[in-house]
């Protein structure tokens, strides 16, 4: 690495942002190669890691060093030669730190993609230039949109195998635009790449002078993520109450948690739900630093002017902008467990910092995730199925629609006997 980069990294780390993205593609579209390429070209690979895959490639008789091996994981999948779960990878450039949720593209692994997508700002969807838009592409796009990922980048890969043809790229782009227009995706990009040869991944391609757009890395480093969080509707789910038993802080009562939306300021009039008591924010702390305002995704501690009984699961909001409160919820659920969902069954649920129980009231329809058609005659919900359901909870939840707020709009369902997380749900 050159000295200039090193100095840069030491001094500018205080301005670096964090971008979380997930990757999706069908088997053999080149996802592992692309991730390996990003890591390698951004110089995020250490010598011992590179030597290890060089050695393995040689042993297997590969001609080139197989960059895909860098993201190879657990032994089970080494034996089967497939990725079976979400794996997280990290790399950084002087501008941003990146967290990759690497999720497999097989049909039976929708749940993994949903898991990886749930925390992502951006989704990379790979398309093989020779095959164009296939069923899986639609499925990956649908899941990205369902999970509310703000930015989607389609990488048309293996351009080297179609003579770097502009025509091929434009055709696929048109197809994808047509399909995406049926979905809610805020921000879409298209990049023609060759993960194997490196064209337009980190370095601009010399083989596609017709392409005027950005490289994938440029997009990753520069896409505006400042508005990915909701900074409008003030939501503070109380996570933990701090009451030090010390003389110095005898009367201190702090409400800790992570801001789920909006901007809270010292002096703001607030309402505590569900009790409905109102008060004023006396102070906001991060450790012993008092700060003037707090926004998502900060973890803070607040104190209020009045002594109100507040506990975990309560929510602090603004008077004129309150969340919904209801026991009846409409959900899009992705089923994660091998045992099918029981219609009429009871499940435990977790929503923000709240625990409750619920009963499945109705299955309205299942979604065919390849065609987006509704299936109304088969209501058995198996692993990897996505369905529209209604539930009734033991007590009212304080929530927003998922499309408005990914934190207050999401919940998980839990099997009460095994304690496994069986469903991921978005409130509609």
């Amino acid at each position, binding site marked *: 690495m050159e000295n200039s980069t090193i100095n840069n990294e030491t001094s500018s780390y205080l301005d670096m942002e964090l971008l979380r993205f997930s990757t999706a593609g069908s088997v053999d579209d080149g996802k592992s190669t692309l991730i390996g390429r990003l890591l390698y070209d951004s110089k995020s690979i250490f010598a011992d890691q590179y030597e290890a895959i060089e050695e393995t490639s040689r042993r297997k008789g590969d001609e080139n060093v197989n960059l895909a091996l860098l993201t190879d994981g657990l032994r089970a999948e080494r034996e089967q030669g497939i990725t079976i779960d979400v794996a*997280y990878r990290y790399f950084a450039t002087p501008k941003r730190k990146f967290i990759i949720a690497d999720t497999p593209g097989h049909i039976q692994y929708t749940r993994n993609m949903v898991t990886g997508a749930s925390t992502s700002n951006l989704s990379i969807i790979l398309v093989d230039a020779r095959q164009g838009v296939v069923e899986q592409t639609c499925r990956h796009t649908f899941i990205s949109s369902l999970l509310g990922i703000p930015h989607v980048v389609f990488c048309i890969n293996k351009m080297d195998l179609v003579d770097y043809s502009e025509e091929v790229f434009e055709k696929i782009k048109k197809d994808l635009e047509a399909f995406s227009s049926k979905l809610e995706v805020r921000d879409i990009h298209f990049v023609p790449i060759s993960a194997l040869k490196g064209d337009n991944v980190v370095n601009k391609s010399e083989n596609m002078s017709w392409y005027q757009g950005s490289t994938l890395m440029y997009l990753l480093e520069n896409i505006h993520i400042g508005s990915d969080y909701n900074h409008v509707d003030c939501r503070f789910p109380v996570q933990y109450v701090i009451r030090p038993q010390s003389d110095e802080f005898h009367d201190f009562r702090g409400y800790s948690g992570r801001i789920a939306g909006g901007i809270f300021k010292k002096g703001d009039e607030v309402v505590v739900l569900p009790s409905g008591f109102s008060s004023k924010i006396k102070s906001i702390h991060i450790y012993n630093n008092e700060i003037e305002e707090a926004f998502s995704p900060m973890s803070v501690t607040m104190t209020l002017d009045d002594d109100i009984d507040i506990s975990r699961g309560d929510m602090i909001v603004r008077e004129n902008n309150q969340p919904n409160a209801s026991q009846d919820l409409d959900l899009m659920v992705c089923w994660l467990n091998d045992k099918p969902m029981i219609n009429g069954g009871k499940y435990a649920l977790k929503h923000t910092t709240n625990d409750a129980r619920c009963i499945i009231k109705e299955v309205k329809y299942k979604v065919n995730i390849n065609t987006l058609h509704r299936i109304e005659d088969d209501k058995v919900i198996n692993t990897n199925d996505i369905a529209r359901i209604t539930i009734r909870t033991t007590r009212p939840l304080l929530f927003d629609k998922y499309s408005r707020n990914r934190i207050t709009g999401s919940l998980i369902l839990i099997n009460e006997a095994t304690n496994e997380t069986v469903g991921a749900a978005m409130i509609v």
Partner: protein
Amino acid sequence: MKSYNLTHLEELEAEAIYILREVASQFEKPALLFSGGKDSIVVAHMARKAFWPAKIPFPLVHIDTGHNFPETIEFRDEFVRKIGANLIVGSVQQSINEGKVVEEKGFNASRNALQTVTLLETIEQHKFDCAIGGARRDEEKARAKERFFSHRDEFGQWDPKNQRPELWNIFNGRKNMGEHFRVFPISNWTEMDVWQYILKENIEIPSIYLAHQREVFIREGVIMSTSSFIQQRDNEVATNMQVRFRTIGDATCTGAVESSADSIEKIIEEVAAARTTERGTRSDDKRSEAAMEDRKKQGYF
């Protein structure tokens, strides 16, 4: 226009603090595994921040192999005193004395594997239902899939095929009798993030992380500190070198790197230019390519 954006370190810290508070809320008797290494120091530092002005609502647990660098133990005691935490020590030596484990013999003898037994015993003895650790996903391939809330069966075993999916920032810590959890608040941090955070927060660390003169010898390309716990072969001649440690584990299997980085800033420059991953200096991982995975299944951190 004002930007409502956090830096990567602020966001990572907010995430870790959120997880530490989740642990305090969801478990009855959690404990923080504290090795005196930089990762566990960073976690303890954030635990202090998370519950301020109250004290950390759970004890620190040190699994002591008995093969420590003296600097680590000094540091540990001073650190615990300063933050007013409660320290519990689980001793591998005691497990050996009680015949629960058998000491490895020979040149490559190490107590690293024995730690697992002592750890599980300490958890059982104190009825801890959750152990917070400083492991990071970037350390090793097998850890790339580890959850923040990692479920362990009643034997402390990790089943990579049967982990609960983790979505959004909702963590499911529900469990049946006898089962427990390992929780890793800094899963998403890299070695670089940890050093940058230590610099930003001005966190004290044991002196052996910084370059110093030390008597060492070379074994299979790894620089090892001479010590009464390690048997040297005849051809393993001791020399003096300027070195520092990138991780602090059992003194018998933690290698040093040659370095002149005597400040955190210089360490960051060095990490940026580093040629080998951190665990590359730990000889216990070299025993087999899948070494870590095997140990994890048995209940290692």
